[in-house]
């Protein structure tokens, strides 16, 4: 169904795009980035990290500081305002026109482009069908649910066959269940249409599910760019490691080529002294207390049953408590004593933010 809507895959290139707001505050340090044609790239970070500013510069709603350039394919669009960039944009607050029906909203961009009436009506109808909105064509916007509104906004942005689709926290205003189903819809659309998409979110789950690549940002800088797997398994600094998923900190002592961590010792190439290492909950195995090959013993301070697993908080008496996942039927509870086995190949030694 989405084949006939296939869009051109236009690459985007940002060349030293920084942004200083009047008053002198730096929203974004100069950024160089190439987004491949047809790729879905997700800008992820806490509020104020510069992700929305970057999106708005690609959209043409903000211009980069002098010297910055924005390229769509071979075209330098830096000086073009948003209305001449041929982008599609989806907003957190939907930005649907309350004075128009659903169909009129979707037809708006085609009217602006002077698409002939018959052609326009056909394309609007096809797009509404694609988004499962056919039955709502004549409705007023305020008669729709949040999820339906955002689907109208997507239809409105896509019907004009934009060069780039820009999504600014499109799921943030929705409740959890709607968010999941619309996320799947968006994923299906982006894969099917082949359009270059830039997606901004503060939700790491959304970023992992939708992004071909994720750009993690903090304080106006790029912290890391990579595939969701890269970002999760090979974070390049402590900020990224903490921001994505759950992360534990364990401290050890390096001495003459070996790292002592609890009862264990691992080969170590770094200098001697105290070392802080990171490890994901799923890379820590549970065992009985004092069992052979375990590195640490601890007391279960909290157990949160999540259905498919139980998340334990284990006090080891040395450093911050560790988060560890137990099997759903393990039956471990608060007050139980456990042994912990760390996977040495999964220990991360990262520069701290």
């Amino acid at each position, binding site marked *: 169904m989405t084949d006939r809507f296939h869009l051109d895959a236009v690459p985007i290139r940002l060349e030293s795009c920084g942004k200083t707001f009047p008053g002198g505050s730096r929203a974004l340090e100069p950024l160089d980035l190439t987004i491949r044609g047809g790729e879905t790239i997700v800008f992820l970070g806490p509020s104020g990290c510069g992700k929305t500013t970057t999106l708005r510069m690609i*959209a043409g*709603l903000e211009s980069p500081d002098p010297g910055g350039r924005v390229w769509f394919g071979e075209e330098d669009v830096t000086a073009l*305002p*948003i*209305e*001449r960039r*041929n*982008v*599609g*944009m989806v*907003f957190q*607050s939907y*930005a*649907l*026109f*309350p*004075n128009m029906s659903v169909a009129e909203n979707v037809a*708006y*961009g085609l009217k*602006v*482009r002077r698409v002939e009436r018959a052609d326009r009506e056909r394309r609007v109808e096809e797009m509404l069908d694609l988004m499962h909105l056919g039955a709502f064509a004549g409705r007023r916007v*305020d008669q729709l649910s949040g999820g339906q509104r955002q689907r109208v*906004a997507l239809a*409105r*942005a896509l019907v*004009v066959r934009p060069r780039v689709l*820009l999504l600014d926290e499109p799921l943030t205003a929705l409740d959890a269940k709607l968010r999941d189903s619309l996320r799947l819809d968006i994923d299906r659309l982006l894969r099917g249409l082949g359009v270059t998409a830039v997606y901004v979110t503060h939700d790491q789950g959304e970023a992992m599910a939708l992004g071909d690549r994720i750009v993690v940002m903090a304080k106006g800088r790029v912290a890391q760019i990579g595939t969701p797997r890269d970002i999760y398994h090979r974070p390049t600094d402590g900020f990224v490691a903490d921001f994505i998923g759950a992360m534990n900190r364990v401290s050890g002592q390096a001495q003459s080529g070996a790292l002592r961590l609890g009862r264990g010792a691992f080969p170590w190439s770094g200098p001697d002294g105290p070392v802080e290492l990171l490890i994901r909950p799923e890379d820590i195995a549970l065992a009985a207390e004092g069992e052979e090959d375990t590195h640490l013993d601890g007391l279960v301070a909290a157990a949160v049953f999540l259905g498919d697993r139980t998340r334990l908080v284990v006090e080891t008496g040395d450093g911050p408590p560790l988060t560890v996942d137990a099997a759903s039927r393990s039956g471990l509870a608060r007050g139980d004593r456990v042994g912990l086995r760390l996977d040495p190949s999964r220990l991360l030694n990262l520069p701290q933010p």
Partner: protein
Amino acid sequence: MTTMTLSRRGLSFWAQLVFTLLVCALLMAPVAMSMLAGVTANYFVGIKSGLTLRWVEEVWRLYADTIFLSLRIAFACLGCTLLLGVPAAYALARRQGAVARAVEELLMMPVAVPGLATALALIVTYGGVGDLRRSWLFILIGHVLFTLPFMVRAVLAVMTSIDLKTLEEGAASLGAGFARRFFSVVLPNCRSGILAGSLMVLTLSVGEFNLTWLLHTPMTKTLPVGLADSYASLRIEIGSAYTLVFFIMIVPSLILLQWLARHDRSAP
């Protein structure tokens, strides 16, 4: 205890009702009397002298031109306040700075300053410019000055209640340039404010007396000035009939204003 509370509440309810009705009667009686006087053959004899439309006809003969002038000024004033006020409200809504807020406050000045003072200032400053003093345009200037704040406020209230910036960004992302955005998205979504402001301006302009009394000349009398004139110099029946005519003009627009306000609340 409960019955006491109930009876106390009951008592205060009845007292308030009686008081409200009394105030209403006090306010309505002169209006009713005046309107009745306008169709009474001889006011001093009373209603038994018979009802007649003679005085209304007399008013029409003597003052039709003031009615037409009032209408002309009211609609010209509406045109001016729309052309000036809607863009002004838009600019104020889109700008967040201290300057914009200061301008917003300054715009209210003509309402705060007594009409007579404004009129005097206009005469002192522009009274000598060409034929302006003798033209109805002089009154129009005064009316625009006085009514513009009401238009700006009404439109601005609606503009700040919707997320105008994002709506416009949405339209721009779909390829719409400024003019297109303004006419297809901004204006239609501010319709209720523009309507409310328009009716306010029309009503205020038709009824304006303070400014107009100083600004008018014998050749440029408006309806309220004519009304004062007739009360001062003619039979009380004619003045009253004049009031009747005034009501016929102003009441429908007030009703329309109320209806629109209610209509807008039920359909957000």
